[in-house]
């Protein structure tokens, strides 16, 4: 439902950026999907890193900074998968070497433009921003599960499944903090 419970109660929706659902054309090669995952991790890392500094809750800010670090580690893992798929020792042009359209605006999980999401966070409460991050991590979990299903290489499959598990763990941590913020001290 558009606008969620606020719209149901007749209140204005908060204009939260809408996330899309990942969909891969049948002929998408694993190398391209790996580069796509890397680009989305990069965008999500930037979002968490920059949004952390504007959060009016130190616990949420710390959590966002940690999540930005986790996305950085995912990028390293995805780069190594790329090298294994390509049979190369290094690829300094990655991800452009397999994803030429990667020089445009930066996107994060759900296909949300990073700059628009950061703009939206201005003046928003920690609860609203955490709720948006929850939606992001649901998308990240879904994306990595779908990618795991599309990988033929057993090691790539295993790594995408591991990243999906980590995204689910992020979701749980965000949920825990969200509940903590909602619970009066």
């Amino acid at each position, binding site marked *: 439902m558009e606008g969620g419970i606020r719209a149901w109660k007749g209140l204005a929706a908060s204009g939260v950026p809408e996330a899309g659902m990942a969909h891969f054309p049948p002929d998408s090669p694993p190398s391209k999907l790996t580069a796509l995952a890397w680009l989305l991790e990069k965008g999500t890392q930037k979002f968490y890193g920059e949004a952390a500094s504007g959060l009016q809750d130190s616990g949420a800010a710390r959590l966002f900074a940690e999540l930005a670090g986790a996305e950085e580690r995912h990028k390293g893992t995805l780069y190594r998968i790329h090298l294994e798929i390509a049979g190369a020792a290094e690829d300094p042009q990655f991800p452009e070497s397999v994803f030429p359209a990667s020089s445009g605006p930066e996107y994060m999980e759900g296909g949300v433009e990073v700059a628009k999401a950061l703009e939206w966070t201005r003046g928003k409460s920690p609860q609203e921003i955490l709720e948006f991050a929850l939606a992001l991590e649901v998308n990240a979990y879904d994306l990595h599960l779908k990618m795991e299903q599309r990988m033929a290489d057993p090691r790539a499959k295993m790594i995408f499944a591991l990243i999906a598990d980590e995204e689910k763990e992020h979701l749980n941590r965000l949920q825990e903090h969200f509940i903590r913020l909602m*619970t009066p001290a």
Partner: protein
Amino acid sequence: MGVLDYFRPVSTLPAEKIRAFLNEKNAGEYNLVDVRQPEEYEGGHLPGAKLIPVGELESRLKELDPHKPTITY
């Protein structure tokens, strides 16, 4: 193909259409799911909505009837 070509918009309906839909149908004809946290659900929810927090969706999907339309918020 650009990044956005790998995403499809999720179809959403405005609150007034959902209100009309719920008025027209019997409760047994659809799945109405509140994916927020229990504390939010307790603070107010749509009539008849089933609480399945987003982190539990995957493990509790079998609680939903796949033959009926599903509305989430």
